[in-house]
């Protein structure tokens, strides 16, 4: 084969306070499928944003060579003009426009602003045949399933005369059949000379379609390996992905584990729109008093969906399963019922789901348990303020006053407000979803101490995290999830990053083979 189609050399990208990429190198040979692997937060998406011009030239260091020529993309349109097209995990289609209109959106067949429908429809028809989609080009995109929408995205890329196609977790939302078709299409496109970068967590997929794989960890290139019949094994890839440094200090604890506080049995949840897909599939787990239990899993494993669904059916469509608190089955059909039975869920998305950013710290803290600062429906603002002052001191929330709008706080302080809110509600069971996402090292250590303290008080704590060292440092026991299913349960003493990653990357296909 000819020289590389893409070379990214010594890419370094920093955000205020964080170095997302340091000295990353990536070389994609002409006409190959090149996989990129790494844990959540390893820098995969940032690297692709640099490549596609989302982070424009000048906001990073290093250089990009496409077909041997240096590139300085100012925005996505610039990279697309050169034939580099990225398809994001969240598809960017307009649901109420037709397939044809979506395929040529921003790239219309038009003369002086007037669209030529003849050329649009014939060209769309050709492109749809190439991607194997047999629906009429005038079908509304909203009427297509996710799998077909993915094909529309690829047709859209072909319309832009793509030479390097970037797919970010393309099969995360697809069922087995649709995934298989998509992978075949990638191989077909490769035969037509289109190179492809595939970001994926599913190692069996990578083994099937990729020619080589580059592993990223903590914003660095670890290695590039050849895949294929005599290429690397899945274990080899896993070993590259994990092994992040245990950079944080975790509080010393001697767990005093009591009775089972929360048990979830055979919990199954369908996707809110796509009822053919079980986002959570027959999950059973339990947490004891005084115990910190982790749930490990990659993006799309169904961890958040499980937690939110248990917490008052706040996600998707429940189709089966029971929740037991202190050994008795309870109804948690609404959030207030769940709170009433002593559950608390601290969201991973504090800005969208956790806080009222327009309101002050004190009113955010009290919202989950207003009854505790009021009498007969009337709030005692003095009491509320005093409670907030107490948490501001004990949680070390840095703010000018307890009336400061939470929208003006840093991420770490916002997280402390959300935690305070749920600690104030005095739950028996706390589910913490990515409790340290996007906050600085100091605040992380403080939050670990708070979590340990909660367990010491006899609360049952369930921690969902994408950072394996965090789970290993904090938890007594760790469950792993993949594709909506529970794939393992490991005691801390037996757990290593490798063993967890192996369980997190089990896919339905390989699981069946093992049976």
């Amino acid at each position, binding site marked *: 084969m000819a020289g590389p189609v893409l070379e990214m050399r010594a890419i370094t990208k920093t955000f205020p306070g964080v170095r997302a990429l340091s000295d990353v190198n990536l070389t994609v040979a002409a006409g190959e499928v090149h996989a990129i692997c790494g844990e959540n937060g390893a820098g995969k998406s940032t690297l692709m944003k640099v490549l596609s011009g989302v982070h424009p030239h000048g906001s990073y260091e290093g250089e990009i060579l496409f077909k041997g020529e240096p590139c300085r993309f100012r925005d996505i349109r610039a990279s697309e003009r050169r034939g580099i097209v990225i398809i994001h995990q969240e598809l960017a289609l307009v649901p109420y426009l037709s397939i044809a209109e979506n395929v040529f959106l921003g790239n219309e067949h038009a003369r002086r602003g007037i669209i030529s429908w003849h050329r649009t429809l014939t060209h769309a028809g050709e492109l749809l045949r190439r991607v194997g989609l047999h629906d009429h080009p005038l079908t509304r995109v909203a009427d297509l399933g996710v799998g077909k929408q993915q094909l529309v995205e690829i047709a859209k890329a072909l319309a832009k005369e793509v030479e390097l196609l970037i797919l970010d977790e393309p099969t995360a939302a697809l069922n087995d059949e649709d995934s298989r078709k998509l992978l075949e299409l990638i191989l077909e496109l490769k035969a037509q000379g289109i190179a492809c970068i595939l970001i994926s967590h599913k190692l069996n997929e990578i083994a099937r379609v990729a020619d080589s794989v580059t592993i990223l960890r903590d914003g660095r290139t670890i290695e590039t390996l050849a895949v294929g019949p005599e290429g690397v094994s899945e274990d080899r890839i896993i070993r590259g992905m994990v092994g992040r440094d245990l950079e944080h200090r975790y509080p010393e604890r001697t767990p005093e584990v009591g009775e089972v506080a929360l048990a979830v049995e055979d919990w199954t949840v369908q996707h809110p729109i796509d009822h053919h897909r079980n986002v959570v599939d027959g999950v059973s787990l339990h947490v004891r008093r005084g115990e910190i239990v982790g749930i490990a899993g990659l993006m799309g494993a169904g961890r958040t969906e499980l937690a939110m669904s248990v917490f008052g059916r706040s996600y998707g469509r429940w189709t089966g399963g029971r929740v037991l608190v202190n050994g008795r089955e309870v109804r948690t059909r609404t959030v207030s019922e769940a709170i009433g039975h002593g559950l608390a869920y601290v969201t991973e998305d504090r800005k969208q789901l956790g806080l009222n950013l327009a309101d002050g710290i004190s009113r955010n803290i009290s919202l989950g348990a207003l009854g505790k600062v009021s009498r007969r429906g009337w709030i005692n603002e003095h009491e509320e303020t005093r409670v907030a002052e107490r948490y501001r001191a004990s949680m070390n929330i840095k703010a000018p006053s307890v009336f400061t709008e939470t929208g003006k706080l840093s991420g770490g302080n916002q997280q402390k407000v959300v935690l305070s809110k749920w600690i104030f509600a005095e739950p028996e069971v706390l589910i913490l979803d990515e409790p340290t996402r*996007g906050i600085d090292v100091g605040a992380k250590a403080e939050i670990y101490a708070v979590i340990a303290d909660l367990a010491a008080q006899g609360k049952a704590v369930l921690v969902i995290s994408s950072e394996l060292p965090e789970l290993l440092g904090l938890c007594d026991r760790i469950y792993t999830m993949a594709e909506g299913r529970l794939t393992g349960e490991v005691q801390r003493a037996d757990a290593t990053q490798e063993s967890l990653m192996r369980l997190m990357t089990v896919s339905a296909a390989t699981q069946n083979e093992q049976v």
Partner: protein
Amino acid sequence: MAQTGTTPQTRKTAPEAVGRTSVRDVLARALRGNVRQYGMLVALALIVVLFQIWTDGILLQPLNVTNLIQQNSYILILAIGMMIVIIAGHIDLSVGSLAAFTGAAAAVMMVRHHLPWPVALVACLLIGAAAGAWQGFWISYVGIPSFIVTLAGMLVFRGGTQIMLQGQSIAPFPRGFQKIGSGFLPEVGPHTNYHNLTLLLGAAVLAVALLQEVRGRRQAASYGLELLPTGLFLAKLAAVSAAVVVFTLLLASYHGFPIVLLILAVLLFGFGYLMRNSIIGRHTYAIGGNEAAAKLSGVKSKRVVFLAFVTMGVLAALAGLVFAARLNAGTPQAGINFELEAIAAAFIGGASASGGVGTVLGAIIGGLVLGVLNNGMSLVGIGTDYQQVIKGLVLLAAVGFDVYNKRKAGS
């Protein structure tokens, strides 16, 4: 993917020394928190002074002040309800039509069917509640956007009014009912140059207000909270006292205390307290600020939004009754553009277009800004054509100022 790391932060919030607080700190903080409302209070004062000079003192003559209150009372009543609806993150376009509808219903009941006016009044408020519940049902439980539901309501209630009145005005109302719109509290005691009951009422209001302030301060102290510096606290008391005394004397030197002002005062304090101190009020703010987060905190958002629209319905009915009583007729043209005035009042008074922000007092201030502008411009002879242009620009400027401030604060 979560690679992007920490959230960009434009301004670091440094911990300030708590404990001793200077007057400047407190003022700066209060201003930072409520720029729009304080700004509008200052703007209202400036507008009053401006027109007081421009009209050679006519604006604040007792007769004119009384007129101003009675002319704007129904918009202010609507503005209170509209503020609640906007805080919850919704809008209500139907209130003008609904006010006309209830005014017409009142006329039919009292004039045609000779029902006793208190009975008809209660019946009309119930009609308002039912209309609000009807709209609240579609908005909250079915999930149709409030803009659409209340746009439909605007047409339905306007049409209903015309059907009920067959295109004609119905008059006159019983005397007792008329007083709601244009009456005054009765006079008692010996003849002075002032209206005695108004003086007594003013004194009572002053006493209660001062007592509340002192009690609140004492309570805050007992909870160990930070207090306003003594000097500033006394200045606040003096300002409140001066406002009450001047206003009381103004009213007392004419016919006395308008009945509708009593209604307004009850609504202002009642709903102000409800929104600030009750759980359901707090839930309303939470839903408007971030509905998803509120739901995940156990807030029953559907019920709260439903109740907000029921409240709006009752207040729209009340506004319609006050308007009909003042006009002394039920007419098909009543209430036209009231919804727009009420919405403008709420936004001028500090509501946020995205919900979750605003106060009942703010709605009153916003309504008064519009009212004084109307009245003052009429007094100096500016035509209604120019008045509309100016009011429109004031609305734009008020909200624009707020948006600019928020952007500067970097949140």
